[in-house]
């Protein structure tokens, strides 16, 4: 069991759950799905610099192997933006429920016939 396999299957699982929840009809599961997707993406960004356990994060003067610092900066940006967007989506969902009286993503209850 390598670290690569563990991370890859974690990302895959998160994406699968995220997509399933995004396709639901109510705004709350959709917001959860978006959150899971963004977790998966954050992990993906992190591993794009390759996994380098135990390596120094910056280039030392006697340049040997080291971890890639850039994806860590990218993932930080992505987390901040994702957090803000999720907050906005929750506010929007609450507002839409107040205005339309339903939490269905189409703003109306599906017809039963």
């Amino acid at each position, binding site marked *: 069991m390598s670290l690569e396999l563990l991370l890859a299957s974690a990302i895959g699982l998160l994406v699968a759950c995220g997509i399933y929840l995004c396709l639901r009809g109510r705004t709350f599961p959709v917001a959860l799905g*978006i959150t899971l997707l963004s977790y998966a993406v954050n992990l993906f960004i992190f591993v794009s610099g390759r996994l380098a356990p135990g390596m120094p994060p910056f280039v030392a003067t006697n340049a040997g192997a080291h971890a*890639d610092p850039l994806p860590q900066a990218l993932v930080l940006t992505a987390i901040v933006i994702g957090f*803000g967007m999720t907050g906005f989506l929750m506010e*929007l969902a609450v507002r839409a429920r107040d205005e339309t009286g339903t939490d269905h993503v189409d703003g109306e209850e599906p017809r039963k016939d």
Partner: protein
Amino acid sequence: MSAHLTILPVLVPAFAGALLLLLAARSIAPRRAVGLTATALQLVASFVLAMRADEVGPLVYALGDWPAPFGIVLVADRLAAMLLVALGIVALGALVYARAGWDTHGRYFHAFFQFQLMGLAGAFLTGDLFNLFVFFEVLLIASYCLLLHGLGAPRLRAAVHYVVLNLVGSALFLVGATLLYAVTGTLNIADLAVRVAQLGPSEHALAKAAGLLLLVVFGLKAALFPLYLWLPGTYAAASAPVAALFAIMTKVGVYSIVRVFGIVFGADAGPLAHLASPWLTPLAIATMAVGVLGALASHRLAEMVAWLTLSSVGTMLVAFAAGNAESLSGGLYYMLHSTFMVAALFLLAEIVGANRGPSGDRLQPAPPLSRGALLGTLFLLGGASIVGLPPFSGFIGKIMILRGTAGTDAAPWIWAAILLVGFLTLVGMARAGTILFWQTAQGEPAAAAGMTLGTLGPALGLVSLGVVMAAFAAPIKAYTDAAAAEIVDNQRYVEAVLAPMGGRQARTVRPLPSVNDR
């Protein structure tokens, strides 16, 4: 000052937006003054930038003076500068129009408007793929708020769809961008262009997947078939000045396709050259067809304009997919034209709707309009231009695209699609115009509403740009020709950006071995 000119179109709205947040509790007059001044300033800066980019080639601005590819750069080449000017013109028109009343519905309209401008300008200027994502998010969050401006259930419903779709799109963007980083070890667009051409055979599949993921994302923003479903509802639900500004927002997606698939996966990319073209041509033709069919089936004028936005996106993407300089130039000219015309028609749709009493802009017979002749003439000018009738700008743009695509394999399809779509657009516009202005029902004309210089002025200004673009077609074409040449041959762009690190031979740091070296 001139050294910092490149970043001005981003900085001006950023500061103005922050100032407008502080002024939110004050009366509307100072907010309008700040908003208008900032937008006018941005337009002037963009215009100067466009002139400079034409004289001395791509202007590169290294943020924090970190040289590319290590730091983030802003690059103002002709393509970016040209779109900045278009952005400034449309924004000014929309903002003047909004003064007639839309901007009083919420305190933060002007602030969001400036942040939207900041995001759009940044997206056009940036030379870094991840920074492009950040500016996408800036313009998206502002667009969410602007779309919701004025509230009401239909807008909220459209906003939920729009926000969720774009959040998924952002996730895909990140996957595509970081996948490209994982393969090449860089995110700078110029450096990517060099690296992608040098990839080993075992890395091609990953790079291809990354590129096509980015195509999906940009296609979503540009409303490419089959990712267009969000656009008509969203644009038709937005208030008129916001919809007019959104006319340039789809162009960000189109621009990103040109930038990434022109510079990075362009003619010089070795085995990955013209990565998007085989997908883009059929999808763009389908977009045109769906757009015009939607326009024919619309029940409201604003909805019809939204569908026409879609068919114009298809038209320009067909030109960009062909990939040669002549068709690219035609596509760029058409992009300018269609942005102005769509924005003008969104404004006109609301003015016409306001003057038809309870019928609004629904395409059904209603009592005659007061001042119908004036509105009808404006509609005729805008409509004829978007259909592509001579002597207006749409005609010249389509001729340029037809000539540019003549030599390609898909030429019969492209020609048939453009000509047929042009004809069907004519039918649709004629139907709408006939119902709105001639097929009047019995009854007193509705009272004239909102027919002031402040609302008619921007609409007239944008419509007359169609005539101006036709009259000054030669200098504009010279500019788009040069812009297209810069894209087709990415040499100048790459050299300009990487110059401080030794141009094409720049050795960029790659901390860990690539997939190949394992």
